C-alpha cells in the first residue's frame, strides 16, 4: 500500500482512502453526480492503483451511492420511474458492452483506459461549466413513443410551490445518449449522470430536478450491469473497493442532506478546476509520463 509513493500500513491506507472517497462522494452529491469522475484519478495518482483496478472499485461504489440516494427520491416521487426504466434498456446494453471491452480488448492496457478517460472528463467539465437548467417547454415536438409508453409526468416544484407538468419528447436521441452514458459507465467506472442529466433536460424536455433524481436512480442498474462482468471475472479488488464504497456512501449521504442549502453554483468553478486537473493527470499517465 502506498500514498504519494510512501509505504503506509493497511489501517492508514483504509482510513485515508475512505476519507478521500468521502470527499469525492460529498462533491458528487452536491453536484448530483456519482463521484466516480474524481475517484478514479485520485486512486491512480495518490494511491498508485492500476487504472482498471481503480475503475472497477469506483464502479461498484457507484451502485451504493445511487441506491442510497435514489431511495428517498423514489419515495418522494421525484425520480420518474417510467422514464428511468425506458432508458435503462439502453444504459444496460452500454454498461455491459463497456465492461466487456475493458476485460477483453483492453485487458492489461491501462494506459489506453487512462487516455479514454481524458476526453470524457473534459467533456464532463464543459457540460458542467455551461450547464443551465432549461425550463420545460409546454408544447414540445410530438413524440409517438412517449405517448405510447405514457412517459409524460408531473412533479411538485418546491421553489415555485406548485405542480409542474412535463411532456416528454426526443425519446430516440435520448436512448442514444443513454447508451453512451452506459458505455462510459462500464468502461470508466463512473455513473454517466453527467451526460444523462443534460440530455434528459434539453433533449427530452424533463425538468432538471426530475432528470437528476431519475438519472441517480438509473445509475444503480447501469453500474450493476458492468459490475457483474468485473466481479465474476475476478477483476474486483475487494480490499480497495471496500474503503472506497464506505467512504463514498458516507460522503454522498452527507451531501444529500446539504443539497438543499449548499450554493452549488458558487462551487461549480472549483469542481471544473478539479476535473481539469484530473484530465491532465490521466493524460500524463496515459502517455506514460507519470507513474
Amino acid at each position, binding site marked *: 500500500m502506498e500514498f504519494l509513493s510512501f509505504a503506509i500500513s493497511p489501517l492508514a491506507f483504509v482510513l485515508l482512502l475512505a476519507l478521500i472517497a468521502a470527499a469525492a462522494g460529498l462533491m458528487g452529491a452536491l453536484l448530483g453526480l456519482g463521484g466516480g469522475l474524481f475517484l478514479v484519478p485520485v486512486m491512480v495518482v495518490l494511491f498508485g492503483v492500476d487504472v482498471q*483496478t481503480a475503475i472497477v472499485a469506483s464502479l461498484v461504489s457507484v451502485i451504493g451511492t445511487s*441506491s442510497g440516494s435514489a431511495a428517498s427520491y423514489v419515495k418522494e416521487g421525484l425520480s420518474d420511474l417510467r422514464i428511468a426504466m425506458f432508458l435503462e434498456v439502453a444504459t*444496460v446494453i452500454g454498461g455491459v458492452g463497456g*465492461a466487456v471491452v475493458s476485460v477483453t480488448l483492453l485487458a492489461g492496457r491501462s494506459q489506453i483506459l487512462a487516455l479514454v478517460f481524458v476526453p470524457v472528463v473534459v467533456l464532463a467539465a464543459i457540460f458542467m461549466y455551461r450547464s443551465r437548467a432549461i425550463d420545460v417547454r409546454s408544447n414540445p415536438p410530438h413524440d409517438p413513443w412517449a405517448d405510447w409508453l405514457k412517459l409524460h409526468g408531473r412533479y411538485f416544484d418546491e421553489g415555485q410551490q406548485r405542480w409542474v407538468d412535463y411532456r416528454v419528447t426526443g425519446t430516440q436521441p435520448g436512448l442514444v445518449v443513454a447508451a453512451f452514458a452506459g458505455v462510459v459507465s462500464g468502461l470508466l467506472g463512473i455513473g454517466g449522470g453527467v451526460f444523462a442529466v443534460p440530455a434528459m433536460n434539453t433533449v427530452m424536455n424533463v425538468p432538471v430536478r426530475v432528470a437528476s433524481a431519475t438519472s441517480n436512480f438509473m445509475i444503480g*442498474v447501469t453500474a450493476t450491469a458492468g459490475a457483474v462482468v468485473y*466481479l*465474476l471475472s475476478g477483476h474486483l479488488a475487494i480490499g480497495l473497493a471496500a474503503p472506497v464504497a464506505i467512504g463514498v456512501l458516507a460522503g454522498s449521504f452527507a451531501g444529500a442532506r446539504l443539497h438543499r442549502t449548499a450554493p452549488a453554483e458558487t462551487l461549480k468553478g472549483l469542481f471544473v478546476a478539479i476535473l481539469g486537473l484530473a484530465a491532465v493527470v490521466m493524460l500524463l499517465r496515459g502517455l506514460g509520463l507519470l507513474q
Partner: protein
Amino acid sequence: MTVEGALDAIGPRPEETNVPPVLPQLIYYTLRIGVGIAAALILLGVGLLVAGSTASFTTATEQGSPFSLAGLANGLAGGRAAEILLLGFLVLILTPLIRVVFSVLTFAVARDRAFTVLTVTVLALIGASVLVGAFP
C-alpha cells in the same frame, strides 16, 4: 382556490405518480435494506481484513481470481474477511437487480404490457452479462 388547488398546494401526492403506487414503496425498501446489509458486511469485512496479516491485505487490494460459489461458501464458513467482503459486494450488486424484479412483477400485475417487456429486457441483459462474466 378550488379544492383541487388547495390539495395541490399541500405537497406531493405520491398516489398520482404514473406507476402503480406500491412500486415506489417496494423500491424504497429494497434499496434501503440492500444497501444497509451490504454496508454492514463491507464494514465488518474490511475491519477483519485490516486486523489480519499485511500480506493478505495486499492481495485483497489487487485484482483476484474468477468468482466461484464453492470458494465463497468455504470462505464464509471459515469466517474469512475476503469472502465476507465479497458477499457484501454481491448484496450491493443484487440490490438494483431485486428492484428490477419487483418492477417486472408490479407491471405484470398491472397489465402494463410495454413496461413488463421493457423491464424483462433489462433483466435478460443483466442475465447475459452474468454469463459473459462467468465464462469470458
